[in-house]
C-alpha cells in the first residue's frame, strides 16, 4: 500500500451511523449464524489469524451424513486455518496453533472498549457483538480503517520516524496520574484508535459481528471457550414487562456460564443504579458466579477500559454521573464438588 493511499484512509464518522438504542430482541431477524462453533469461518473477521476456506486443500470434504466425521474434519481444518498474516505484531504463538476468540463484548456499540483493549492483549482475539445493523457497520469500518493505518505505518517503518505506543507504560502512567481510576470525574482515558503510531496487535485481534446474543451465543462459542465477557452500559429495559429482555437474567447467566471457562471473568458496568442492583441480585443468586471484591479489581488492566473507554462511559463522565461496576468470576458448580 503506497503512502499516497493513506490520504484515502479515514475513520468513519459516527454521525452517519446513528441508530436508536432499542431493538426488540424477541422478533425474528435474519442473522448469519453458524450451525455450530466449529463451522464458523473466522477468517473474514481476523484475516491475520485465519486463512479463508477457499485456500484449503481440495480433498477436505464434508460427508452428507455422519456428522461425527465432519466434526473431526472441521477441527483439522481449523487447525490448518489458523495462520498469521503479514503485519501481525510479535505475539506469543498459541500453543496448539489454533487461535480462538477469548473475549466477547456483548452489546459492543461503537467499539470503544474493543479498540482500547486490543493493544493491551495483542495476541488475544476479541469479538464485539451488536444487534444494530448501522452500528455494526460503523464498527467494522472503523476496525478496517484502523488496521489500514497500521499497515501504512508498517510500510513506512523502515524509513524511520514511526513510533510504537507502549500501551502498558502509557496506561500505568495514566492510572498513576489519576487519583482514583474509577472516579467519575477522572479525565477520559484512551483516545480510541491510534492512527499515528503503531500499536501491539495492529488491531488485527478485534472484530465486530451482528448477532442476537440472547439466541445464538452457543452457536458461536464452545463450552468454556471465553476467558472474559463484557456487558457495558446495557439497555435497562425499565418497564416490568420488558425485564425478560434484560441482558442479565437467570436464563442468560446460564449461557454466559456455559461459554465462560471456570476462572473467567464477567464484567458489568452501568450508570443506572436500578439496573446495577438487578444485575447484582441475579449474579449473587446464580450459583456459578462469585463476586470479585473491589480490591482485586485494582490489579486488572481491563477495568480502567471498562470504566472509561466506551462512548457511553465517557458520556456518563461528562455528565458527572455515577458508574456502578460489578465483576464476577465463573466458578465450579458448588452442587457438584470435583466437577465443573
Amino acid at each position, binding site marked *: 500500500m503506497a503512502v499516497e493511499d493513506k490520504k484515502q484512509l479515514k475513520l468513519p464518522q459516527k454521525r452517519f451511523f446513528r441508530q436508536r438504542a432499542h431493538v426488540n430482541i424477541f422478533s*425474528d431477524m435474519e442473522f448469519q449464524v453458524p*450451525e455450530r462453533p466449529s463451522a464458523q469461518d473466522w477468517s473474514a473477521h481476523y484475516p491475520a489469524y485465519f486463512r479463508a476456506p477457499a485456500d484449503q486443500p481440495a480433498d477436505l470434504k464434508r460427508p452428507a451424513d455422519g456428522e461425527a466425521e465432519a466434526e473431526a474434519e472441521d477441527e483439522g481444518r481449523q487447525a490448518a486455518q489458523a495462520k498469521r498474516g503479514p503485519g501481525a505484531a510479535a505475539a506469543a504463538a498459541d500453543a496448539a496453533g489454533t487461535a480462538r476468540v477469548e473475549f466477547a463484548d456483548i452489546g459492543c456499540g461503537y467499539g470503544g472498549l474493543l479498540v482500547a483493549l486490543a493493544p493491551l492483549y495483542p495476541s488475544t482475539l476479541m469479538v464485539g457483538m451488536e444487534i444494530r445493523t448501522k452500528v455494526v457497520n460503523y464498527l467494522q469500518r472503523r476496525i478496517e480503517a484502523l488496521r489500514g493505518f497500521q499497515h501504512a505505518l508498517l510500510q513506512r517503518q523502515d524509513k524511520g520516524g514511526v513510533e510504537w505506543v507502549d500501551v502498558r507504560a502509557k496506561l500505568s502512567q495514566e492510572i498513576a496520574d489519576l487519583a482514583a481510576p474509577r472516579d467519575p470525574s477522572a479525565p477520559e482515558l484512551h483516545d480510541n484508535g491510534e492512527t499515528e503510531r503503531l500499536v501491539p496487535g495492529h488491531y488485527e485481534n478485534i472484530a465486530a459481528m451482528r448477532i442476537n446474543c440472547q439466541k445464538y451465543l452457543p452457536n458461536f462459542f464452545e463450552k468454556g471457550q471465553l476467558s472474559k465477557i463484557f456487558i457495558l452500559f446495557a439497555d435497562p429495559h425499565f418497564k416490568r414487562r420488558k425485564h425478560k429482555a434484560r441482558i442479565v*437474567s*437467570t*436464563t*442468560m447467566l446460564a449461557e454466559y*456460564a456455559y461459554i465462560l471457562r471456570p476462572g473467567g471473568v464477567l464484567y458489568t458496568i452501568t450508570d443506572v443504579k436500578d439496573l446495577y442492583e438487578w444485575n447484582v441480585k441475579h449474579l449473587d443468586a446464580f450459583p456459578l458466579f462469585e463476586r470479585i471484591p473491589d480490591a482485586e479489581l485494582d490489579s486488572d488492566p481491563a477495568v480502567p477500559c471498562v470504566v472509561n473507554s466506551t462512548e457511553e462511559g465517557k458520556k456518563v463522565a461528562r455528565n458527572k454521573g455515577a458508574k456502578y461496576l460489578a465483576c464476577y468470576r465463573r466458578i465450579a*458448580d458448588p*452442587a457438584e464438588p470435583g466437577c465443573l
Partner: protein
Amino acid sequence: MPRLPITLMASSPAGLAMLAFDADFHIVDRTGKVVASTTVEADGVARISRAGKGAVKAAAFSRDAGLFAACTSEKEMAIYSTGDWALVRSHVAEKRVNAIAFDPQGAFLVTADKFGDAHRVPAAAAEGAAELLLGHVSILCDVAFSYGPRPLVLTCDRDEKLRISRYPNAYNIEAFGLGHTEFVTSVATAQFAPDVAVTGAGDGTVRLWDVATGRLLQTVRLEGLLAGYYADGRAARGENSYVDRTAAAERYGVLRVRAAEGLRAFVAVVERIPAVVVLPLGDGPALGPASVVDVASPPTDVAVLGDRVVVSYAPGPGGDLAVALSWSGGTAAADEALSSALNALPTGEADAVAPVPSIFVWGSKTHLDRPAGDDEDGE
C-alpha cells in the same frame, strides 16, 4: 356429527395409555379397555376429574407409572395417582405450557412453557410452589429426562436448539445439541439407549444425539423416506393463505418422536403425511434402516401401548380415530382387535371439528416470509 379426534396421547411404562380429545381423556389398557376416564360412566371404570378448563395440551406418566399429569390450554394442570386416579394436586401455571415431564424419581413435575421457562412443582404434595428450573430465550417445545446414571434434563426450542442441562442444578448447562435448522418440536429418550436422545424438527429431519456431549451422531432426512406421499397426492397440502404457509413448500414437519421400548426403536409422525416412520436403533449407535407404515389419515400423535405402536389421526373414512400396529419379523401389521377397541372409544361429537393449524404457523420464522425491504432490526 363428526367425532372429536384424539389429539394427544401419553404412555405409561406399566402398559397404559392416555388418549385425549379436547378437554377430556381416557386411560386404556393393552387391550384397549377403558380403565379410567373423564367421561365414561361404567362399572370398573374409575371416574377422573378433568385437568381443568380447555383442551389437554400436554400429558405425562411418571417412570414408576405411579403418577399421571395432564395440562390444558388454559394453563391448568392436575396430577393424579394411578392407583385410584384420585387427584393428588392441581396447579395453575403462569404461562401456557407446551410440554410436561416427571423427573426420574417422580418427585417433581417439570413444565416447559411458551415463554421459554421450565419450572418444577413438587408432584406428590398438595402444596409447594413452582420453582424456575431453566430458561431459553425462545418458545420451549418439549422437555425430557435422560436415562443415564447422571440425571440430565433436555429441552428443545423454536430457535433450533436442544439444550442438555444437569438436574436438578439445571443452571449448569452440560451441552447444546446444535444442527437443526428449524424449530425442534420433540425430544425423546429411551431406557434401551441411555446414551442417546432423538429429536424431530420442522426442518424435516430426525436427529440422533450423544446426550453427554451434545454431539450430533446422525441426521435422517425424512424427504428421502416420505417424498412419495407428496408425489401421489396422499399428503394433505395446506391452503395458500397468510395463516398457513405450508402450501408453497413440500415440508416435513415432525409432530412427535417417541421411544418404543419393546421394539428398540424410535417412531416419528410427520404433519399431514399419513404414515409412521420407524427407526430401529442399532450399533454405532445409529438409526436405521427405516421403515415407513401407511396409516389411514394424517396423524395427530403417536404413542406406544405395551409393544404396540398407536397412531391417532383426524377421523378418516369410516370415522376411525386411530390404528394400533404390531411387528413380527420386521413387518408391520395392524392389530385389528386393539384398533377396533380404540376406534370404539367414545370421544364425543361436535358440530364441526376445527382443522388443526400447521405447526409451521407458530414454528417458522416470520422473516423468511416477509417481503424484502422491511425494517431490518424489528424495531
